[in-house]
């Protein structure tokens, strides 16, 4: 699923186990000019991170295969000197502010309830966030 990455494009790693959603996210991000690494498990995401020189942002779903893999994945990233500064947007259908607080306290940058947001809004937020970071 890996595409060749041009150096001037933002690289977004998307982790989402629902194939139709992953496809839509990938397409929308690519249309906005980003490169997408699409993973449906956190294991696959970790192998991308090990291979790639650069990932600008991670889009992470909460409900993936296994038990709380999203939270464990964030904890692992935040403990790694190499990866801890990669921004993370959690986009999840997990309900309730408890999950949101759990992720935010682990150091993710944004938390969205998937069903409440338009895809173009999410993509716009990501672009805004990365542009601001660059300045």
């Amino acid at each position: 699923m890996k595409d060749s990455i041009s150096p001037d494009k933002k690289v977004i790693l998307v982790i989402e186990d629902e194939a139709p959603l992953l496809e839509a996210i990938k397409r929308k991000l690519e249309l906005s000019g980003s490169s997408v690494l699409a993973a449906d498990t956190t294991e696959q995401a970790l192998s991308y991170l090990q291979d790639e020189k650069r990932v600008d942002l991670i889009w992470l779903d909460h409900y993936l295969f296994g038990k709380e893999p999203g939270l464990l994945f964030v904890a692992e990233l935040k403990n790694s000197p190499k990866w801890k500064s990669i921004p993370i947007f959690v986009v999840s259908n997990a309900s309730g502010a408890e999950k949101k607080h759990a992720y935010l306290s682990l150091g993710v940058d944004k938390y969205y309830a998937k069903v409440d947001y338009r895809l173009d809004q999410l993509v716009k937020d990501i672009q805004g966030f990365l542009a601001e970071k660059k300045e």
Partner: protein
Amino acid sequence: MVSIPLSNFKEAVDGSFDYILITDPDGIILYANSAIERITGFTPQEVIGKKAGTKDLWGGLMGKPFYERLWKILKQDKKPFTGEVKNKRKDGTLYDAFHTITPVLDKDGNVQFFFEIQRDITHDKEVDRAKTEFVSLASHQLRTPLTAINWYSEMLLSGDVGAVSEEQSHYLKEIYKGSQRMVRLVNDLLNVSRLEAGGLIVEPVPTKISSLISASIKEGKFIEAEREIPVRFKNYKEDIKLAVDSELLSQVLRNIINNAVRYCSGRPNPQVEVSLDKRAVEGVNSLVIKVEDNGIGIPKVEQHRVFEKFFRASNAQKAAPGGTGLGLYISKTVVEKWGGKMWFESGERKGTIFYVTIPLTGMVFQKGEKKLA
């Protein structure tokens, strides 16, 4: 009336499925039927002569305010007390019960004895919990396919995979709107199931109220039928600082303001005004938040049902068919959890004013387990 021998009454009471207890005015047990053993594990012989509702027997778990209220109602007001209690059986296991305690008075109005009937409702509560969990689970499962419908129709409408004709776009908009309506319903159902599971977390933190209200108004985009409705905030002279759970307060506010906007959008010169006041409400010094609109109002004959689950006034259904009928039920439940009150005044075709209060001592902290979805 057919006369029944007194012994029949005794047999009925002895054999009752609910436990029946008679105590003296100080709560010392004079009589207990056999059901007491099935429910609490203590035999009638073990409990007679002891004080009811204490830790030595099956009670004492409800905390001081509960028992103070109970004794006030029974001894001072001399009224029956009903409610749910959590109790502990002889073997240490907990159970839920519904009980009624009735003071029996002599002809001078003094308490002669108390009469208690208690039913074990542990099983009913479990069934209720299972039902709530089912609603929550089902709502969750609906969110993923709804997201797919939302995002794909959105992309088609944006022309991401090529232009669509005007007619196709119209059809797609209907799909999108239908899906959005279902999202609102699923979110509201999730919140209802969370509230009904009990244990809503209320975490009050000192907060500047006016700033929070201004922010809630700014964040919410109050657009109905592609027209922006002005929402004015008449600021209080000082920015009052109160301990509130800001997430809960903004959720309730957004809900009420959204309604105000929705139900005045079709009327001439629609406007919504939010204002603040400090006064005593039912004996509690409170901050009163007032949300006033000049919309369709609520028909008088339907006003008493407005806070019912799924209820929608006839004119509201016509004006906004997409509503869930859950928003006000959710809001009122939340407001009462934080120790406030919520009510309204309304005139058909004149408008509606909703009032929400927060005690000036701050929202009541609730340890709880759940936040809203």
